[in-house]
């Protein structure tokens, strides 16, 4: 059966206050409350609430009321009633739902068999989606029509691809975001929003509807993207890092109060993305603090945070740093890292992931004079202590550093030398620099600069470069693998295109080492051709060795706020410990029009997702034993293994049989797999392990196979053909992501 599943989402409704006064209010608290939205039955009605709105879910209508504040003379409800969904003449769903129910913070309206409407109650607003379990009947575009009743006025500028505004009194209103279709493989397509004064039409192109396919592809995302800081819409330029001892991530970002007052804020987040404590004031004085960066000093159980600071937005710029207790969020006093008469800008931080090593490292650019790196001691609650500083290069700009030095203890810094290309240097915890100025790639221009992460002996450098012959500054994403033997660099795979779609802007990449894969994220223009500040964040996992794709590209933003960028990756691995294939992605999400209200959003990702898993088909016979999977049956999981447990004592050998689904033979009541491959595996104390590292061959994804353990030398077996062989249950596995 060809099963199809279209998840059509991302029609977001959000309240928005336009006035600068509201955004600039220095007294406005930083709301980073992921739980600041909810959905519950209250007084007999299903009601939703977010920081800037309330909603009510009735059987025939959904009402969304933005909180416009005291400046508004009255409330302005925004009421939507489902009219129909159709393809051509085929009506797919009617206005009367068969059921309305709530699951967690989502309200579901069952519109037709296999077709349901969902409203996610999110911090920033409601997110409307339609799910189709089977291919919709009919031909042509898939169109959902909703009737609209509101006194809000539709703004004259409506963009079918990116959304529309309904506003009132010049103080605010409701934003309706763009429409996106996503199938189960993660394939995405931009739909159209037809906004009118009295209706909305959501349109998905027929080509996508016709070709959307199932295999079972489980998205490696865990959780949805969420807002770290966003109530005042003046947050941006984030970074994130992980510290293993306290199992916390720290997000940092710059918060704009005014043109002359920009501070650094932070927020601790646990491994699941729950906020820990309140927002942190890391730097807030009369100066301007920009470009915050963070890394973990594992030995100090603290984060090191650095930024550039000047008396005004014009500078002169110095590099400052503070440390943050990874458990409590206590912020140390700030210390000066670099404050010469030159302008020191664009800091980037690294940490020592090894236990007992309290070091943080900060690299930066001296305007016109090259790249420096400093070592700071993050021990204790006092201000970080500057240990030493070295020069890595007398030329170059836009430096980037690995989040840690890995177990090998070598940190890698890359930078751009205009008209020359990207260069690299490595240093150890004592700031001994075995090699500097290693040529990574020769390029005339690296407009977005480079990013780097790695293990201390292997690094991946990513960057953006101009598309050939582009006249409008379109960029592509490339990568280069570096190998470092403790003394010298050599180039591995690459340069390789990570994302180089012709006529589409891909830019400002970040990279993280996620144990099994490299994760690369970048700003991805929503539309080809001349961009219109409509960007999502795209993520792609890469093979550790070849830099080839190890999964499918997917998008972590695209929530309707539309201008997403400035992405950073904080990999758990960099924060210490022996495992960790997870990472937090931090990004800035903003409006496409001035004043470009922005917020900091986050996404938890992992290199190896839930995988495809295995289902049991039965058929166990003889002396029982258990067949299981060690690790996720997921692409790129190099630690994956098949395991056997509970085999009869005395059994010393088992055969692992692998074959096609449904290819069995009966034997005395047993269902034995006809093996295409069988591997003898020694059994010790009733257990056997067959490691099968899963590579990054994309053709494996969705592949189904049957497997079974045959324990040899059991005391009994109903299979007369193999009287000393017992069989575990037959299982069918699917490789997923």
């Amino acid at each position, binding site marked *: 059966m060809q099963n199809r599943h279209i998840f059509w989402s991302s029609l977001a409704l959000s309240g928005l206050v336009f006035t*600068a006064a509201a*955004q*600039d209010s220095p007294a406005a608290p930083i709301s980073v409350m992921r739980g600041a939205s909810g959905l519950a039955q209250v007084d007999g009605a299903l009601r939703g609430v977010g920081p800037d709105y309330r909603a009510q879910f009735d059987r025939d209508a959904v009402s969304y009321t933005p909180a416009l504040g005291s400046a508004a003379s009255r409330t302005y409800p925004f009421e939507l009633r489902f009219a129909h969904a159709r393809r051509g003449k085929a009506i797919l769903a009617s206005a009367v739902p068969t059921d309305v129910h709530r699951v967690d913070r989502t309200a579901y309206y069952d519109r037709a068999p296999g077709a349901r409407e969902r409203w996610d109650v999110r911090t920033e607003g409601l997110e409307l989606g339609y799910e189709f379990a089977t291919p919709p009947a009919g031909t042509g575009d898939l169109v959902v029509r909703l009737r609209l009743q509101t006194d809000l006025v539709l703004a*004259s*500028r409506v963009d079918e691809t990116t959304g529309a505004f309904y506003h009132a009194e010049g103080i605010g209103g409701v934003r309706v975001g763009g429409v996106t279709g996503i199938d189960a493989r993660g394939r995405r397509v931009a739909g159209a929003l037809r906004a009118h004064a009295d209706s909305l039409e959501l349109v998905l192109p027929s080509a996508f509807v016709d070709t959307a396919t199932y295999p079972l592809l489980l998205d490696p995302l865990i959780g949805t993207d969420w807002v770290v800081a966003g109530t005042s819409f003046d947050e*941006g*330029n984030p970074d994130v890092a992980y510290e293993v001892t306290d199992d916390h991530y720290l997000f940092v970002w*710059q918060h*704009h109060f*005014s*043109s*002359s007052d*920009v501070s650094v804020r932070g927020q601790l987040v646990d491994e699941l993305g729950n906020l820990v404590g309140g927002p942190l004031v890391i730097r807030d004085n009369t100066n*301007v603090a*920009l*470009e915050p960066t963070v890394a973990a000093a594992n030995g100090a159980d603290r984060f090191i945070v650095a930024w*550039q600071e000047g*008396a*005004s*937005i*014009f*500078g*002169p*710029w110095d590099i400052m740093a503070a440390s943050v207790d990874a458990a409590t969020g206590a912020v140390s006093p700030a210390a000066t890292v670099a404050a010469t*008469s030159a*302008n020191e*800008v*664009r800091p980037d931080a690294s940490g020592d992931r090894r236990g007992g090593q309290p070091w943080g490292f900060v690299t930066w650019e001296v*305007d016109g004079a090259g790249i420096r790196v400093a070592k700071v001691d993050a021990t204790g609650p006092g201000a970080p202590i500057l240990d030493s500083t070295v020069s890595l290069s007398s030329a170059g700009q836009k430096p980037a550093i690995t989040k840690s030095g890995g177990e090998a203890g070598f940190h890698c810094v890359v930078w751009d030398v205009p008209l020359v290309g990207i260069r690299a240097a490595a240093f150890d915890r004592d700031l001994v620099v075995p090699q500097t100025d290693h040529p990574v790639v020769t390029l005339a221009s690296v*407009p*977005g600069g480079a990013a780097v992460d790695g293990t201390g002996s292997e690094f991946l450098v990513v960057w953006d470069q101009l598309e050939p012959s582009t006249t*409008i*500054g379109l960029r592509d994403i490339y990568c280069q693998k570096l190998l470092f033997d403790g003394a010298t660099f050599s180039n591995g795979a690459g340069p390789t295109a990570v994302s180089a779609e012709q006529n589409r*802007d891909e830019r*400002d990449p970040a990279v993280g080492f996620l144990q099994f894969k490299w994760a690369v994220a970048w700003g991805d223009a929503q539309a080809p051709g*001349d*961009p*219109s*500040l409509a960007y999502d964040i795209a993520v792609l996992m890469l093979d550790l060795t070849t830099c080839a794709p190890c999964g499918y590209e997917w998008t972590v933003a695209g929530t309707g706020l539309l*201008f997403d*960028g*400035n992405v950073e990756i904080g990999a758990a691995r960099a924060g210490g410990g022996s495992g960790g294939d997870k990472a937090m992605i931090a990004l*800035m999400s*903003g409006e*496409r*029009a*001035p*004043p*470009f209200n922005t917020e900091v959003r986050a996404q938890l990702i992992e290199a190896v997702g839930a995988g495809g898993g295995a289902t049991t088909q039965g058929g166990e016979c003889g002396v029982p034993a258990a067949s299981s999977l060690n690790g996720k049956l997921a692409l790129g999981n190099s630690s994956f293994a098949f395991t056997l447990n509970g085999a009869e004592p005395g059994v010393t050998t088992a055969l692992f049989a692998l074959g096609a689904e449904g290819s069995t033979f009966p034997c005395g009541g047993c269902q034995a797999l006809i093996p295409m491959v069988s591997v003898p595996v020694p059994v010790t104390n009733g257990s056997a392990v067959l490691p099968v590292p899963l590579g990054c061959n994309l053709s494996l994804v969705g592949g189904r196979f049957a497997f079974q353990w045959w324990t040899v030398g059991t005391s009994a077996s109903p299979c007369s053909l193999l009287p000393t062989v017992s069989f575990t249950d037959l299982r069918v596995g699917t490789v997923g992501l």
Partner: protein
Amino acid sequence: MSSPLFVSLGLTAFAVGGPLLGQDPSAGSGASGAAAVSFAPTTGAVQLVDGQLLGHGADYRVAFGDDQVEFTPALGRQVSRTSPWTFTLTTVDRDGAHLGRDRATRSHQDNIVRYGHGTFDEVYEVRADGLKQSFVFHRVPAGHGDLVVRGRVTTHMRGELVRDGLKFDADGIGHVQVDPVVGFDGDGRTVRGSIAWSATGEIEMRLPAPFVDRATLPLTLDPLISFFAVSSVQDEEDPDVASNPTTGRSLAVWTRYYASNDADIMGNFIGADGSLVGGTFFIRSTVGGLAFDPHVCFVEQNTSFVAIWNENLDVWAKGVESSSGALTPLAQVTNNTAVEFNLDIGGDISGVDNDAIAVWGNATQGVIEAVQIQVNPGGTLSPFIPAAISPTGAQWIDLDPAISKTDGGAGRHLIVWDRRFRGSAASEESDIRGWVVDRNLNLLEFVVIATGTDDDDNPDVDGDGANWVVAWERETDAGSGDNDVLCAALTYDGATSSYVIAAGEVVVEGDRNDDERKASVAWLGNSVLIGFVDEVSGSNDDAFVKSLDPFTCTLCEGEFNIEIGNPDTDTVAISAFMGGLFGTPPKAIVLWDPEDPSSPDRGIQGSVFDAADGRSTDFYGGPCLGGGTAFATCAVTGNASFTIRVQRAEPSTNAFLLISPFANEFWNRGCRIMPDLFTSVVVPNGPTNSMGDSRFLIPLPATSSLVGASFWTQWIVDTAADIGTSQALKVTIE
């Protein structure tokens, strides 16, 4: 017997560089004066000018006729009559035996003019320091006795024999010196000859017979070099200068006075670094007539300078090609009985058109007249028919016009003048008026700049085609002779054809009981330079320039000395250019004309002014989708009035200012946004006004460490259709 003749005259060097522009310690601003370099010409020049073969050194002109040479010392305009000294060869003989000589054939190469006479040549070398005359014999003259060369000298100057030669007194101001004769032959042997002079005007130069008899060929009668020294003669005045904004090459023009009724128009190119390019050349010489008050502009389309001057109270013009220096034929702009005076000219640097616009006062009718002068391919000039741009008024006369040096690339000029009201002689009330005109001299908007009962005179103006700064002098008390220099800034909206006075009647220099006047203006983009002279004593004016914000007339870089001390300076001329390279800081050539009664004349002086007014580099053109044009003027440390502006954006539309230390290019529907949106401060600045203007005041701290710091800024307007952008600016604080 032999008698060589040598006439040598002193010269005055045109010195570009001159003294370092001094810095007013009170200004506290960054240094702006370029290192001064003085350039003295090492050669004279010979040039065909309007059909005449002329030569010149530093302080003389020589005209080469068919058989006579006229040497004219430049005595300045305080002398009422010119003093030519004319030599005509009459005979060459040995003991009465005349050498046959053919009719002279004249030729010239470089700075040498040669009259061939068959068996010998009469040779003139035009040198910077004088004219060197030689007689070169290709065979030993037949006969016996001394070799004698005789000539007739015509001059009103009285000649007398002196110990070292012959001296002609020029009205007590100086003298023409003919030094003793020297002969030398092909083997380098030399002999001293003698010289004689008769009251009838005959000069005789003689070489002794024994030397002539034994001489090897060629035999030359050669003079020793001497100088005609003129002390304290102010012979070069009225400088003006214009610049090719692309290459930075400038053309300086000035008047060289031989007497009050005999003056030529001279020129010299100046490189972007302030060095002289080539030598001084004639733009116009009437050889005895009066050409004066030159002005010059640059026209981009045919890369030509256009010079105009006053000749016989009419306006004349010539083109000077920017690279080669080739002169176009003479063009007469006016030919009437009216009296034209106080000329000025501005050029089109947009490349769209090939016109210059000349203005002057018609003293006969009391009006301002103007004309387009078309620069044709190949260099010829085609003046249009002049027309009055100010009406004849019963209550006033219009005079002293000035026009912006360029159209700013926008195709518009501002012409300003002094409107003097009749019947107000006691109070001498006069105002400043003007017209905004387009490149075709269509009158766009009448402008009133200074009103009231004050005596406002002698305006000058420069701008960028949409914004202009006007400076003028105002008499503080009627009849006191105590003037101040004032400044006004105005901005013009082409869409509505209206203007706004952005800053009005700001005093630039206004010391009490101290006469400041002769204002000149140069628009440097991020600042405006105002030149003026400032009274020290009754006969001694010093010269200064002041760097001001072009939108407020408030102090930008400060005040700089041009000339202080004994010399008396009458004129300061300024021309701005952008250094010749994209992104290089703007510069200006400053010229002035010092006169020092206690020392030899220094001629026209010059220097390069390097603006340190906050380098502001335009990136990616002009307005996009109604985003307007951005300005970030006078980005200097400690400028508490530092303001970032946008002009001519979509009117009444919310404007936002981006400021970031970094660039990170984004595109939005064909418009580029350069400041990094991830780090940018976004300033909501409310709606633009009815002209589409907005401004944001953001004081720059007085921190020396900010010098050299850069930031990116750009305006964004939220129009109904989309967002529009101004051009992006990368501003470097200086």
